[in-house]
């Protein structure tokens, strides 16, 4: 049996999107969703629609920017790319995430 598919942990969607854009360069919404599902290898249940408010939020904060371009099938689509501020933010959030994970792991090990 497949492990139960999990919701995206609260607050990590931003981090995931930023990391994806950093790794893959400019992508449109569909491609971002696809990429996240690939990496998660089926362990993540992503309502692809929830991506758009998150993208807007990141854009408002100035961490990503968007530009209209043609998608693979020659359809107009918005392409998002990470900005300099976004890279800085990604580094900071990744570090914070690593710290959190280390801390939680240590806690779990002590308990067991």
């Amino acid at each position, binding site marked *: 049996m497949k492990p139960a598919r999990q919701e995206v942990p609260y607050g990590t969607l931003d981090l995931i999107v930023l990391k994806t854009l950093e790794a893959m360069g400019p992508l*449109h*919404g569909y491609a971002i*969703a696809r990429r996240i599902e690939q990496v998660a290898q089926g362990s993540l249940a992503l309502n692809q*629609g*929830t991506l758009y408010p998150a993208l807007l939020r990141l854009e*408002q904060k*100035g961490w990503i920017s968007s530009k209209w371009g043609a998608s693979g099938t020659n359809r107009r689509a918005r392409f998002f790319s990470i900005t300099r501020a976004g890279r800085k933010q990604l580094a900071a959030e990744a570090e914070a995430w690593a710290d959190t994970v280390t801390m939680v792991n240590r806690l779990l090990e002590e308990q067991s």
Partner: protein
Amino acid sequence: MTVLRVISSRLKALFAGARSDAELDEDVQAHLDLLAEEHLRRGLSPAAARAAARRDFGGVEQMKEAYRDQRGVPLLESLLQDLRHAGRALRRSPGSTLVAVVTIALGIFGPTVTFTMAKAWILDPLPFARPDELVDLRALDTVSGNRRGLNAADFLEWQNSARSFEEMAGYRQAEARWTGTDGAEHLRGAAVTPGFFKLLGIEARWGRLFDPSETGAEHSNLVVISHLMWRERLHGDPAAVGATLRLDGEDHTVIGVLPESFQFTLLGRCDVWRPLLFTPEQAADRRGTAMVGLARLRRGRTLEEARHELTQMAAAAATAYPDTNGHRGVRVLSLADEVRVHHDLGFIVPVMFVMVAFVLLIACFNTTSVMLARASTRRQEMAVRLALGASRSRIVRQWLVEHVLLFVASSAIGAALAVYGADWITNSIPVESRQYLRNYAALPVDRTVVLFALAVGALCGVLFGWVAARTSAEADVATDLRDASTRSTPGRKGARLRASLAISEVALALAVLICAGLLVRTGHNITRVDVGFEPRPLLTFQLRLDPLHYATPPEMRSFYERLTRDLLGRPGVAGAAAGSLLPFGQSGNRAEVFPEGSPETPPSETPSVFLNEVTADYGRTLGLRLLRGRLLEAGDGADAPRVALASETLVERYFPGQDPLGRRFRLGRGDDNLWTIVGVVGDVKNFEAIDPREPEAYVPFAQRPRRGMTVVLRASGDPEMLAPTARAAVAALDPAEPIAEMASMDSRIHRVTAPYQTTAAFVAFFGAVTLLLAAVGVYGVVSYSFAQRTREIGIRMALGARRADVAWLVLGQIRTFLAWAVLPGLLLAWGLGHALRAMLVGVTPTDWSMYLSMTLLLALVALVAAFVPARRAMSIDPMTALHDE
């Protein structure tokens, strides 16, 4: 930084709503298409592929909603939505919206006009440098509590040694006789100590003003002129500076022109300003009362400290000079307060405010009532919205927005109307009186006033919107939805609220009407006050003979005797006389009086009377009431025994319980002449229509001649028509003698009564508005309640009720209103009436006939207002009424 970026991005989105909605749609569509293609590739049918794509994507609409919330400013957006919705709702029922708009505009109009008056005359800072530090200094009669002018000695002592002040100046009224190229003319003017203008922080428009160091006698021939004088008489020529003006027979050099905006209301309009300098003899004078002091507080000193210091100095002077300073205290007020005291109209403003506030409240009650009536027809809309998930707070907000929109928009109209109201008030003030009001009584409706109107409107909107909202947000969804089909019972709460609004409205209206009635009757009485003489039709004018040409008593005597004789012979003149103290002439001399045999008491304890030197025909020309003895006659000439007329009050006060005829008294200190009372005349109002009674003595002009007199003519027709006759007569005697202040007695009296009449007209207008609003209010409530009871009335009539029974229903409702409203209304009127007491003439604040007649008037209007819906109710056809449901 990030926060700023987010805010600016959100605000931008607010104005790009539709465009970014389209962009999002495009994004989503592209995404869905790509998803569907993927599913197609996996072998699904096109329809199934599209469905799968939607499933993967999740709820499109929820996402869009979350996206919009994220994008813009949700509160603001829904507020805009509320506004649009409110605008639509108001447009949907244009009739009741129009009623509400007119009602509120009329309601706001009153407070706005009143605020304009308060602002222009009371609240605005005086147009001088650091006006808060300016102080007005006068003497105080500690016996009577009246303010008095200062004398030079006291003033100079204060100026030299008082430590509470940075600077001190003094001024007094000083008219001037200007001999120009086209003859002589009297100019209003003032004499001011050289530091006066610097103290006020006034700079010359042209030339310069007095320098505080110019205290030497050699500077006495300098003069500063007003902007008006410069423009009207000196042709607005800058070269007027340095010119020579012949004033009071001496050449004066014009050193400067005052700025156009300069006005010192305590002095009225002054055209020539001369330096007030003291000879050593004048500087020692402790008797005078003509000066007023003006000072600037030293920084850090308070008015209280200054008052304390001067009080101590006055006490020391009282010990040192008991004769003159015995009962003399000091009166120290901030200049702003002194100006307020002088503005007679200032005292009306607070009472007006209360009255117009009541009218505004009535207007608000009415409007809320109308809105509630509309609300109950919108109950189903509200219920549906609630059922569909609108939060109650959203409904409350909708109400608030609707009210505030309506109130603020109507307030703007009210503020626009206030421009006309303010103009009307200014125009109702006699031109002669305007010089004593700030800005010559102009009442600008400026930005502050408009903001005030809008703010009051917004406040009322929030307040009453909230009341209305609370009632309607308590809607019970289930019942209201069900009621949609039956429409039988109106919302109980709304109905009760509307009834209590109507009752409060009627109570307030009653109070406003009664007070308005009292003031209107005052305005009516004031023109019919017994002034002690026959004021119509009289023409008056002043002469102040040139001291160079009329140096001796016989010359003065002969001039006025010839003038009155000449005038009497001219057509249209029924009587001609002259007096030194003409009623309503604004000035008068007092003289100390010592009844024969009583010792010469110190001035502080000596009674004084108004002294009127009159020509032989004065009593007959004015129509004085002779109570005893005889009037003065031509026989009481220069060489005849000295005789006098005494006023009723003089006799009562100084010869109580005695036969006054034949009694003698001396006039003025050190004057040994004895004057014998030959007649007693009734009291005359000399200054105000409601003057306190003051003793007055009349003595023959022939026995006490003077240069300055007021001539009075009794006309056989319109007194104004006699003006050319009067000018011709004076010119025939001496073409160089200028005439001043030519005016009919009627217009002189009008200057004094105008504030009362203005008030009366103002409140009469609001009384009418109140009556109208009350009628609309009662009509609204009654007709609404009958509309709600159509079915009930239909059943009653089907069961045999007659029309009269229906009429009784209406009467019953009116009776309930009145029963609840009358007592509070009367109590309110009683309280307000007592606050008005000082302004009432010839009517008491508890005049029962006024209370009764206004109550009846209001009841009558309520009945008439209820009659229309009642007729409609009576003509209900039971069949139709029941079928309609």
